[in-house]
């Protein structure tokens, strides 16, 4: 049923907009909303959240009636998870492990995001990129980042 599948794309996009709009709008109620004359910190986010919900609903309605757009297509979950993990790993370990450890781990995770890459290849890529990054950022650009972090006793 191509018609349904096409519309799904709009409906999901609309749902994301509505969800984020609702989140911001309800969140903004925790702050002082104020009046148009003296707007509080919550005023603009509340209005924008409301607009986003409206637009999201319009996208959903359009998805049900006129379903345009292309099919969503497959999602490569392995890539999605491993690339995200690579970035999170870097953020979590940069202080503890330092640049070398954080980079080794995250580039290794990233290299595995592609299913056709072998273990040997991934290790070579990770080591090579770590060396390259250290040369560029620490040696050439002189960023003051610790090579080894607080978790590593030296």
């Amino acid at each position, binding site marked *: 049923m191509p018609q349904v599948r096409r519309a799904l794309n709009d409906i999901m996009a609309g749902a994301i907009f509505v969800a984020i709009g609702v989140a911001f709008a309800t969140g903004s109620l925790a702050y002082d909303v104020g009046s148009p004359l003296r707007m509080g910190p919550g005023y603009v986010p509340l209005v924008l959240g409301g607009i986003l919900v409206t637009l999201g609903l319009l996208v959903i309605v359009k998805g049900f009636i006129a379903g*345009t757009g292309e099919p969503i297509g497959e999602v490569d979950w392995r890539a999605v998870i491993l690339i995200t993990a690579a970035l999170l790993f870097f953020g979590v370990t940069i202080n503890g492990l330092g640049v070398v450890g954080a980079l080794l781990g995250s*580039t290794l995770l990233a290299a595995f995001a592609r299913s056709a890459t072998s273990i040997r290849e991934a290790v070579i890529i990770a080591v090579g990129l770590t060396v390259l990054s250290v040369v560029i950022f620490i040696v050439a650009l002189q960023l003051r980042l610790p090579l080894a972090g607080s978790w590593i006793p030296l």
Partner: protein
Amino acid sequence: MELFDNLGLGLETAVRLDNLLYCFLGVLLGTAVGVLPGIGPTATIGLLLPITFGLEPVSALIMLAGIYYGAQYGGSTTAILINLPGESSAAVTAIDGHEMAKKGRAGPALAAAAIGSFFAGTVATIVIVLFGPPLAGVALTFGSAEFFSLVVLGLIASITLARGSTIKALAMIVLGLLFGTVGQDIYTGTPRFTFGVRELFDGVNFVSVAVGMFGIAEILRNLEDEKTRKLVTKTITDLWPSREDFRRMTAPILRGTVLGSALGILPGAGHVLASFGAYALEKRVSKHPEEFGHGAIEAVASPESANNAAAQTSFIPLLTLGLPANPVMALMLAGLAIHGISAGPSVIDREPELFWGLIVSMWIGNLFLVLLNLPLIGIWVRMLTIPYRMLYPAIIAFAAIGTYSLAFSAWDVFAIAFFGLLGYGLIKLGCEPAPLLLGFVLGPLLEDHLRRALIISRGDPSIFISRPISAVLLAFAVGAIVIAVLPAIRQKREVVFKEEV
């Protein structure tokens, strides 16, 4: 004449040895990263932005601008050689440029792009010199109401040319505006949507948003379907276009330059429209339109000139109004802010050295591009052969370390992951990321002027339509929405995109 004094000041700044060096470095780095397949100019600038932070503002801006043209030019090299345009404006170049490459005429195609870009860049620089200061003079009379309406117009204009659904593009703008509200409220200092995270008090880092939405999301899409890229390299033998080529590309370069210079000033995706428009125009006026799509040199020369002219003149709204016309300019605006310069009409008066220095360096940058690219083409071709399995982990490593080094905040790195996922999901659902980035950068400005204007008018919203300039700007914004939604024009727009992509 004052103009020549100003240009003299600019020249003095731009040819300072250190600035020449940064300009050269910017162009070189920009081209190198831009040539790498799968990274467009926006992600390139996002990735290289941290490098410029240690420099003084003029040098930083000169280098950033160099990175921008370099990336743009590198993108057309990829488009011609492997039919993989880094961004939408290079998509047009790919059509005939790649056909030329397949026929063994990659050299003349690359040369046509370089020469066209250089000529267009020179003319566009003159356009900035002539129109920048008067426009800034007009903008100096603007109050908050006018600036609010101007930002609204800029945001709306960015959707009319985006491909796909108008409502989705509008929603993406609002989404960007909302993410822009994260951080301390400017008037009361109340932290908003920070969940108690101190690092978020200054707001979400724009580099994270740009690198996530344009860099990481793109990687995820590329990994999804690793197309076999056909590199056409062995055939680059004769770089220089023949006399016949020169004869055929002269008029198209002129036409492309005029079209591009005009469209670049408009807020919105001016440079995309410029290259599509130039292609359509050439096809119409050509004596042999049947060659288009099969390697016509006009179809490379004209869109490339238009594209580069527009890229350059899009600095006009940024420098004179503080209004970025596209995501790259949004990054420039944020980059300026980091150096403590708020772009806007007062820049010319307050920072004449920066303004004129940048303008002159644009021309020098374009000169470097020609001098650099034609002889170095062999190196660029070799960079194209770097396999993607090595390239994308490198992008991730550089994104992480570069963004982290901005503020030594792990949250900035987490934000890349967040916006990468969000961008990937939304792109898959048919939403373009560019309006979101513009909304994100302009959000705080919009809120500031809205609140200020309403305080001035004592809460009366009619201030936005009772002041004439503001009313005209808003009328344009409404007109832009009508044009985008109107079915007849919409269809035509889709035909243009379908036919020529």
